[in-house]
């Protein structure tokens, strides 16, 4: 065992973003306790806490790990910890802060008046960001299980947040029922992994599965490892909403308060893929071991892309349509993971492509949802007909939503195009032509349902003619998302480099690197 006597300096430094989020969330709860309803400061406190967490993450980004660990190699400390604070974690820390921040900003006006429990809502947003951070850095089965459960519980509560709204609690209950079943399955899978390897630490498990003769139940391990992986995949697949674990998502998305829907479409997906990559690539990423799950992952990716894009065609509620759309997007991300063994393309590794895709998707999807939040708040409905004549009632929102949809379809030069190009390129490079073809074809199908809404916005007759005035928060989020969608599309190189640097932490662990 390494000498890991508690070095508080190191611990505080590397947990800084998480500590800030915990203190911020608890502080917000106590603040709300004493000044409940007297002012509207809660969202601004939330944004302040998120900004502090972002700054702390940026500070960690620039830090040389060797300095922090006072001579011990970063690899030694990192490999043995239950929580890793490496470039991969930093990337997803930024993702979680960005998601929570943009959701908060676009949801301020929407949540005002919807509920008496404002402070708790924003505290849960902070807790959700914290849970995503924990998932991204988890290097131990216990931390993985706790992180996923933490995010799940927070998501159930946020989905059912408006108690007076039938749809909200129905969405929350369905989300909860599916979630508790899949998380029990995932825990069972994690237990099997622990049982065969004799440790909950990912590097130790990695070492154990590379020497099958040392496993505890050798005669069963050829069967148990794939079974355990499939059970774990059910739990993670539920979080990221890939078929066939997606059934909760249309109901939860439709029922949840719209800002929460925006959060669900990005936050849990990003964090779930972070866990999936960390577990499947670092532990089961060698050519022999990955043979047991790559085929399943590829098949699920194909199924997810087809199902998401086809089911979205017939939806009459925009939030529900976006649920299927985000299922399809998860399928594209999964393609990149299934192709992880492939060679580099366009200067990106396949996993770098996935991270780049998630980054592009975050801004585009949250921007689209900011528009939906505004329309939902101002018209009181999220059905497609509520968008009729939006081009006359608010030209800014209509143009912005059109651009976001073009990016989600994957039209150059928007960010979504490069995301898709990178993951499908990775699929082709690793001889998965089938997946790339399915992805491109279903992408064409997706144009149909996005353009149904664009058509309604530009050629539909509005039920009422008044101009819609989005709140300043929504305008800010839409503008930011527009700028980022264009910048990532026009100048993708710096973002590709960030994504590539983040996945350097994800090399499959070689046996010799493990410190026991």
């Amino acid at each position, binding site marked *: 065992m390494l000498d890991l006597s508690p070095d508080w300096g190191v611990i505080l430094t590397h947990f800084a973003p998480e500590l800030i989020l915990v203190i911020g969330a608890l502080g917000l709860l106590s603040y709300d306790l004493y000044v409940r309803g007297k002012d509207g400061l809660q969202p601004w406190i939330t944004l302040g806490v998120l900004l502090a967490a972002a700054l702390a993450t940026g500070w960690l980004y620039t830090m040389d790990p060797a300095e922090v660990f006072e001579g011990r190699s970063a690899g030694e400390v990192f490999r043995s910890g239950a929580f890793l604070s490496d470039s991969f974690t930093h990337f997803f820390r930024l993702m979680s802060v960005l998601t929570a921040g943009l959701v908060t900003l676009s949801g301020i006006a929407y949540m005002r008046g919807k509920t008496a429990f404002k402070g708790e809502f924003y505290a849960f947003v902070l807790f959700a960001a914290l849970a995503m951070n924990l998932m991204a850095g988890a290097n131990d089965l216990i931390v993985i*299980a706790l992180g996923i459960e933490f995010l799940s519980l927070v998501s*159930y509560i946020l989905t059912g947040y408006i108690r007076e709204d039938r749809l909200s609690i129905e969405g929350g209950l369905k989300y*909860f029922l599916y979630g508790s079943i899949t998380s029990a399955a995932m825990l069972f899978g994690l237990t099997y992994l622990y049982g065969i390897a004799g440790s909950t630490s990912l590097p130790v498990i990695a070492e154990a599965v590379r020497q099958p003769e040392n496993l505890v139940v050798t005669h069963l391990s050829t069967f148990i490892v794939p079974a355990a992986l499939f059970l774990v995949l059910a739990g993670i697949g539920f979080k990221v909403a890939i078929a066939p674990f997606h059934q909760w998502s249309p109901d939860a998305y439709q029922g949840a308060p719209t800002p929460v829907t925006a959060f669900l479409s990005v936050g849990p997906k990003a964090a779930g893929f972070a866990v999936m990559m960390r577990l499947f690539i670092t532990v089961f990423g060698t050519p022999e071991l990955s043979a047991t799950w790559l085929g399943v992952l590829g098949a699920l990716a194909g199924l997810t892309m087809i199902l998401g894009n086809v089911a979205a065609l017939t939806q009459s509620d925009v939030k529900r349509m976006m649920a299927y759309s985000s299922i399809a997007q998860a399928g594209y991300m999964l393609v990149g993971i299934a192709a992880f063994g492939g060679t580099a393309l366009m200067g990106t590794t396949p996993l770098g492509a996935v991270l780049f895709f998630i980054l592009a998707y975050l801004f585009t999807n949250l921007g689209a949802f900011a528009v939906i939040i505004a329309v939902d708040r101002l018209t009181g409905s999220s059905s497609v007909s509520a968008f009729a004549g939006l081009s006359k009632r608010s030209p800014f929102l209509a143009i912005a939503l059109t651009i976001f949809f073009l990016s989600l379809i994957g039209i150059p030069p928007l960010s979504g195009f490069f995301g898709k190009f990178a993951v499908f390129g990775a699929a082709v490079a690793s001889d998965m032509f089938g997946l790339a073809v399915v992805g491109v074809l279903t992408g064409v199908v997706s144009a149909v349902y996005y353009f149904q809404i664009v058509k309604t916005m530009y050629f539909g007759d509005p039920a009422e003619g008044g101009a819609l005035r989005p709140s300043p928060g929504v305008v800010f989020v839409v503008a930011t998302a527009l700028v980022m969608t264009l910048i990532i599309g026009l100048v993708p190189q710096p973002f590709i480099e960030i994504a590539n640097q983040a996945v350097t932490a994800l090399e499959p662990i070689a046996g010799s690197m493990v410190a026991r």
Partner: protein
Amino acid sequence: MNAVPLGHWLLLTTALFGVGAAGVLLRRNVMIVLMSVELMLNAVNIALVAAARAHGQIEGQLFVFFSLTVAAAEVAVGLALVVAIWRSLGRTDVDDVSVMHG
């Protein structure tokens, strides 16, 4: 000392997990579904303790404490949702709770 081999524990827990899963899939009352989920989680706990004993170490038993806590938190959230549904609907059957579909 290790009288019962690990394989037997695995069979027991798999069976228990299967019973719980069957309850989740077949029963329609939300309360019974919640109880079935608890059964699945208890299968996990038994498997963890058995594996920890087989390995002669404590990590698995630590895991059980976390797993128990998570199960309690999950039930708290689930019951809150069930109460909210009960207030608005007067019933708690899974099939009744479906305004949304498609």
